[in-house]
């Protein structure tokens, strides 16, 4: 009998010591998907036969002494904007429902090389942007903590599937918060790595200069394991950075002592007012971090609305350019939320876009200056717990200003970390942000925080 919930690190230890076989683990997840996913709708497509075949192959390799590492035999899911050879990659949209790529995305190939078992393709907001939508070929994913609640988006299926233990980890993408939002609402750890760290080749784009691929899992340690496999230069992605890749999991052992943290309190106390539960949880997180030997002091940046205006203008402009031809030809094949947001995007002028790019340079410099004598900053990841899924406004990306978009604008590594639960049992979260290419420091603080708090022991009751 395989436990309902296992982290990647726990399962990897059992697999390496031959106490658990990949076949047993994959079968247990397929059983769980069959039992639970009709309520959660986290999967667009379950690849049961392919997953069993990959698990058998992993079993055979491990039995032959060829253990590849901590992802070998681990069941994961892919947001359905990650291209998969011979398997439809739809963007959760009628517009691409018959799109069958010939090759895996670079990142998918890397996960397979590490031995991960792909269980299927996961729900997303349409093209990683428009949702939650009820007028698409597949329903929106539901939050496992309360299925009447929003998962956050756009990596909605990954948030739901990981939280529910249907997979042990998965991929998301983040153009304005699409990893960190679902991670926050579903109680996960989710990191948007530094821009350029993970190749976006073979991932359906939303906004080229803001798009980040990244992992979502139950713990920071699991994110570190996934990031290790995903990170690395790819000449097929023009933004892919040639930088050394550190050992992210080893970095976790350094602890948090001595880290200098700036708290951007005005983002969530004034600019996008968080509710009382969220504020209390973040105050508690700051105290915990001080108890771990960090220094925490308030810092002030430009108003959140400035960061959001910059990022949203760029995102909408780039998304419109990507979808322009299909919007003209087949407007109503898109869902209403996506297409109406795109109609608004069409109102942005070329001068607006260039002004946003100029503002971006100023904001990047502003954050760099603010962090000159800091290692990290922290702020809210979301202003509240997950709202009801039927109360998400059509144009929510524009108002109130996004708490996550600032770090897409700067390309900084940014992570959502669970920091407690409401009285009703819904997850709360905060956001840790590092300097570019210091993703390991972000993971290190998140791991130290998780080890010092009880939040990772609590799982959805399904």
């Amino acid at each position: 009998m395989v436990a309902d919930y296992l982290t990647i690190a726990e399962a990897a230890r059992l697999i390496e010591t031959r106490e658990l076989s990949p076949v047993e683990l994959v079968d247990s997840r397929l059983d769980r998907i069959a039992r639970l996913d009709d309520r959660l709708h986290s999967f667009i497509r379950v690849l049961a036969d392919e997953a069993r075949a990959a698990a058998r192959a992993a079993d055979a390799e491990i039995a032959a002494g060829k253990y590849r590492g901590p992802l070998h035999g681990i069941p994961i899911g892919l947001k359905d904007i990650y291209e998969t050879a011979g398997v439809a990659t739809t963007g959760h949209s009628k517009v691409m429902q018959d799109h069958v790529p010939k090759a895996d995305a670079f990142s998918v190939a890397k996960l397979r090389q590490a031995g991960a078992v792909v269980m299927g393709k996961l729900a997303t907001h349409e093209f990683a942007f428009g949702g939650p939508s009820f007028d698409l070929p597949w329903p929106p994913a539901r939050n496992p903590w309360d299925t009447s609640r929003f998962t956050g988006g756009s990596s909605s299926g990954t948030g739901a599937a990981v939280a529910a233990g249907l997979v042990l980890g998965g991929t998301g993408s983040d153009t304005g918060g699409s990893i960190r939002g679902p991670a926050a609402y579903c109680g996960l750890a989710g990191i948007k790595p530094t821009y350029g760290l993970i190749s976006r080749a073979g991932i359906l784009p939303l906004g080229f200069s803001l798009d980040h691929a990244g992992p979502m899992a139950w713990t920071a340690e699991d994110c570190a394991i996934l990031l290790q496999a995903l990170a690395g230069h790819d000449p097929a992605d023009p933004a892919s950075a040639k930088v050394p890749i550190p050992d992210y999991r080893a970095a976790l052992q350094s602890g948090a002592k001595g880290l200098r943290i700036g708290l951007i309190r005005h983002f969530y106390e004034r600019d996008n007012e968080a509710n009382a539960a969220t504020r209390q949880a973040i105050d508690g997180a700051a105290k915990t971090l001080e108890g771990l030997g960090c220094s925490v002091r308030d810092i002030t940046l430009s108003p959140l609305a400035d960061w959001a205006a910059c990022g949203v203008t760029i995102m909408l402009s780039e998304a419109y350019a990507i979808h322009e031809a299909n919007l003209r030809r087949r407007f109503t094949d898109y869902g209403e939320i996506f297409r109406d947001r795109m109609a608004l995007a069409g109102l942005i002028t070329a001068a607006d876009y260039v002004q946003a790019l100029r503002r971006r340079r100023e904001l990047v410099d502003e954050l760099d200056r603010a962090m000159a004598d800091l290692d990290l900053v922290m702020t809210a990841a979301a202003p509240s717990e997950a709202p009801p899924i039927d109360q998400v406004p059509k144009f929510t990306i524009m108002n109130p200003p996004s708490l996550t978009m600032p770090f897409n604008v700067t390309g900084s590594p940014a992570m959502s970390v669970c920091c407690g639960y409401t009285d009703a049992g819904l997850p709360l979260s905060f956001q840790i942000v590092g300097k570019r290419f210091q993703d390991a420091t972000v993971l290190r603080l998140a791991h130290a925080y998780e080890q010092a708090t009880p939040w990772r022991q609590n799982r959805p009751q399904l």
Partner: protein
Amino acid sequence: MTRQELDAALARLGLDVPERERDDIAAAAHFIAEMAARLRPPGGRDVSAEPAHVVRFPEG
């Protein structure tokens, strides 16, 4: 933005937006105008202020 202005803009874009969705879009158009205003500092920007197409990467 008035409905008439929106209809003209959508026609220029070549988008066939269903009638029932047009009022929603017109009502939200102020978000675009507000963002555009925020991108322009009072007094303007130095003419040589270049845009950032991507973030700067460290050497090596």
